[in-house]
């Protein structure tokens, strides 16, 4: 209990910082050693992940095809690019770069190796169709005949009747199923790459399969396409507590879907089902359980949170009237990028050394506090980037590296503000320990308000800006937060402790806190030390007599007179040493 309160506070803060650092390293260690994926690869690593421009990456060029083979319009391409951008962004913070080129190509650049999931996500974007289900069966292509042997269904006989016997009256009319179509259905092999249901005509029935190959269907002609879906989201159904996908149709879609639901509701299975078909395969074929006239159907079933999210995303973003074909996919070696990384690191090192030298010149031994704070900052930022790479897929880009180098200056500023406030307090004649406390009280207000402007900038940019800027905004916000943390948990406690050492507390000339050098002007608030005061007075007196008209030049003398007059009223609050 011998230690005064600020000292205990200081130790507590430093222990807190140490615990926090240990915690962060612990979290990352968990990621490295415990949370491994199915193949045993560590989830995290001890180095931050780098973005495409620093470590190379994968470039995928997609070619967009319209159903009728005409070149897509510039508008359609823009829509396609921004939808694919949304999809890629939704998979992580990484700085995916999506551009259109040559009229019908979309270039997707993904940092690192694009995993299977990301690839599918990008490539799956295709046109979404709604078709009524006419018939469904298991994906088998053979049957067990009377002889007990398994026999493949024969190829459809070309002589079979291929036109409906009676003109089908609507999308669910079984008349669509001609003998030829049925024979084709029976022989249809879901795994055969020759089958391209995606390019079949929209106004004809379609034979296709569930996207996981568990069922095959005969579907009616397209009755609605993805462009009539204005939104799709997943959510928990409050009645049965199951995950569901909620769809919102646009005006026209609502009308059409209402008619479909009236037709399908109560029909015998499978005629009461309708199918969402993406890129020719069935995503989901729910049955109609009610007449839905408000255009807001809900799909329920055996969804998990993840599967309902995937379907909702597919429905929402799949609303593109285009199909895509991967033209080329290759990895980029960013020789230029790795060179730039080296340059950046070198520049950062030189910058740090210059900042260190400058700090030592201006703040003498206090400069070491700045350097130590920057080192702590570096360690915390590094480990946080490792964790974020693991948890959020954050990748450090060249812009991010530049951002980090630049933050050296921004971070050092909080210490500069603080030290200047301490010096100001010393100039007022306070003891070093109380100058540290009072300077802290004033500096922290300034730091909080000014840093919150930085955080605001980071948050707004992160929410609104494009992927490239997002990475930068993220780095800015992160470093600002860490900066404030270090200011509270490291710089201030260290100064509190240092103020009690003989070197700093005694105001050694090299400590940077020498009251003499700082010309501690006032003994109390009112007592002026003779040398400084005399010089100031005579000089300003001379000037004042010469130029009566310029108020601001007379400031010093007038200020002093009034300060003397009002000294007793003002000294109570601040002269507490």
């Amino acid at each position, binding site marked *: 209990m011998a230690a005064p309160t600020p000292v205990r506070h200081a130790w507590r803060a430093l222990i807190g910082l140490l615990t926090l650092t240990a915690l962060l390293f612990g979290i990352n260690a968990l990621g490295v050693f415990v949370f491994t994926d199915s193949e045993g690869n560590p989830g995290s690593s001890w180095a931050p992940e780098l973005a495409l421009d620093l470590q190379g990456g994968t470039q995928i060029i997609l070619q967009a095809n319209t159903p009728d083979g005409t070149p897509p319009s*510039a508008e359609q*391409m823009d829509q396609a690019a921004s939808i694919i*951008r949304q999809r890629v962004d939704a998979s992580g913070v990484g700085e995916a*770069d*999506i*551009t*259109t080129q040559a009229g019908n190509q979309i270039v997707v650049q993904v940092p690192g190796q694009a995993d299977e999931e990301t690839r599918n996500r990008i490539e799956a974007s295709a046109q979404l169709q709604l078709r009524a289900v006419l018939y469904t069966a298991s994906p088998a292509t053979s049957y067990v005949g009377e002889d007990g042997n398994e026999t493949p269904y024969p190829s459809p006989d070309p002589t079979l009747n291929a036109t409906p016997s009676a003109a089908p009256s609507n999308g669910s009319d079984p008349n669509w199923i001609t003998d030829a179509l049925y024979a084709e259905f029976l022989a249809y092999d879901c795994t055969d790459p020759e089958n391209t249901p995606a390019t079949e005509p929209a106004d004809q029935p379609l034979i296709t399969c569930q996207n996981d190959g568990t069922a095959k269907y005969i579907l009616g002609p397209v009755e609605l396409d993805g462009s009539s879906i204005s939104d799709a989201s997943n959510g928990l159904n409050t009645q049965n507590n199951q995950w569901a996908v909620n769809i919102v149709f646009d005006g026209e879609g609502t009308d059409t879907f209402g008619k479909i639901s009236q037709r399908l509701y109560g029909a015998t299975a499978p005629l009461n089902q309708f199918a969402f078909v993406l890129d020719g395969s069935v995503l989901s074929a729910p049955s109609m359980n009610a007449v839905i006239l408000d255009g807001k159907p809900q799909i329920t079933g055996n969804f998990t949170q993840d599967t309902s999210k995937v379907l909702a995303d597919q429905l929402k973003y799949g609303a593109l009237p285009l199909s895509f074909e991967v033209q080329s996919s290759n*990895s*980029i*070696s*960013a*020789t*230029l990028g790795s060179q*730039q990384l080296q*340059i*950046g690191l*070198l*520049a950062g090192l030189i910058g740090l050394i*210059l*900042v260190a030298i*400058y700090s030592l010149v*201006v703040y003498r031994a206090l400069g070491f506090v700045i350097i130590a704070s920057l080192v702590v900052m570096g360690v915390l930022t590094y480990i946080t980037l490792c964790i974020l790479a693991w948890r959020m897929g954050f990748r450090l880009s060249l*812009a991010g590296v*530049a*951002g980090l*180098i*630049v933050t*050296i*200056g*921004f971070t050092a500023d909080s210490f500069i*503000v603080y030290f*200047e406030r301490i*010096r*100001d307090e010393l100039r007022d004649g306070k003891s070093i320990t109380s100058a540290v406390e009072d300077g802290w009280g*004033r500096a922290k207000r300034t730091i909080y308000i*000014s*840093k919150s*402007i*930085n955080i*605001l*900038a980071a948050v*707004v*940019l992160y929410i*609104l800006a*494009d992927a490239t*800027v997002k990475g*930068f905004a993220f780095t*800015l916000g992160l470093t600002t937060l860490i900066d404030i943390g270090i200011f509270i948990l490291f710089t201030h406690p260290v100064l509190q402790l240092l103020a009690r050492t003989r070197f700093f507390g005694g105001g050694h000339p090299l400590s940077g806190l020498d009251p003499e050098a*700082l*010309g501690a*002007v006032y003994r109390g608030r009112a007592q002026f030390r003779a040398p400084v005061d005399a010089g*100031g007075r005579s000089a300003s007196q001379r000037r*004042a007599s010469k130029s009566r008209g*310029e*108020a*601001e030049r007379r*400031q010093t003398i*007038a200020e002093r*007179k*009034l300060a003397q007059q009002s000294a007793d009223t003002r000294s109570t609050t601040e002269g507490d040493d």
Partner: protein
Amino acid sequence: MRTMSQFGNDLYTGKTSFPFVGRRRLWFIIAAVLVIGAALVPVFRPVQFSIEFTGGSQFTVNGVASPDQTLATEAVQSVVPGAATKVTTIGDDAVRVQTDQMTDPETRDVTAALAEIYDVGEDSVSSSFIGPSWGQDVTRQSLWGLAIFLALTFLILAIYFRTWKMSVAAIIGLIDVLVITVGVYAVFGFEISPAAVIGFLTILSYSLYDTTVVFDKVRENTHEDGEKSGRTFGESVNLAVNQTLIRSINTTVVAALPTGAILFIGALWLGAQTLTDISLSIFVGTIVAAYSTLFVAAPLFSLMRENEPEIKARDERVLAAREKALTAA
């Protein structure tokens, strides 16, 4: 020579005082000249936008024996002298060349030249055109972000400082910084790339940050002075700016050192385009931001407040008391 801390002491007591508020007419004229000058630069020397904004032609050469990047530049220059080219190596055997948008005959000639110089068939060279998607998308979104950020900043500062006039002064100071920085960019002929935009956004944040630090001292001084103060409002503001001057100098030097290091190294090693783009805007921006806070935002704030009846009345009392003190002395 006075030491830095001696200088700081004199600024703190008011023994040394720079007339940031007093000579504001001069500072405003200088600021106006700088802003108009910066705004006029693009007229004489148009701002260059990078391929991400303008769109452009892109050539990819596949199956190259050795992906020597200088060959690509040579090939393009032989067809269109002076064309801006950006060469990237893709994989081990491919080179991507980005150039200004080219006409059809030029595209054919460049394709032929690239095929010849890399000794591959013309069918290994694919050419395409980049639509300015980044530029359009990002510019629109960034402008939205900018507008919302400024509105929120305006609110936060107005609430914190309890006067909207500080918000106005800070944001005018910010505009000053952005215009001058873009002007400097144009003067040096640097192209505005995505990296440069990021640099501008950094300055945006930094400039407001810097102004806030100084304004917080202004708030402290003008607030603590209260009725008993021996200073006019303008003098209080001026003293606050002078008292934070050492901070402003130190911060600017410390912020400029690392970016200056990037610039210096970027100038030695050609090709560090992204880094130099970002650091130039930040290097210029930090210095201009410090200038703008001291010479534009602070005097502007004083100017806006001085005519408030309450402050005007108090200033008159202060001046009258001072007159009396002088005659008494």
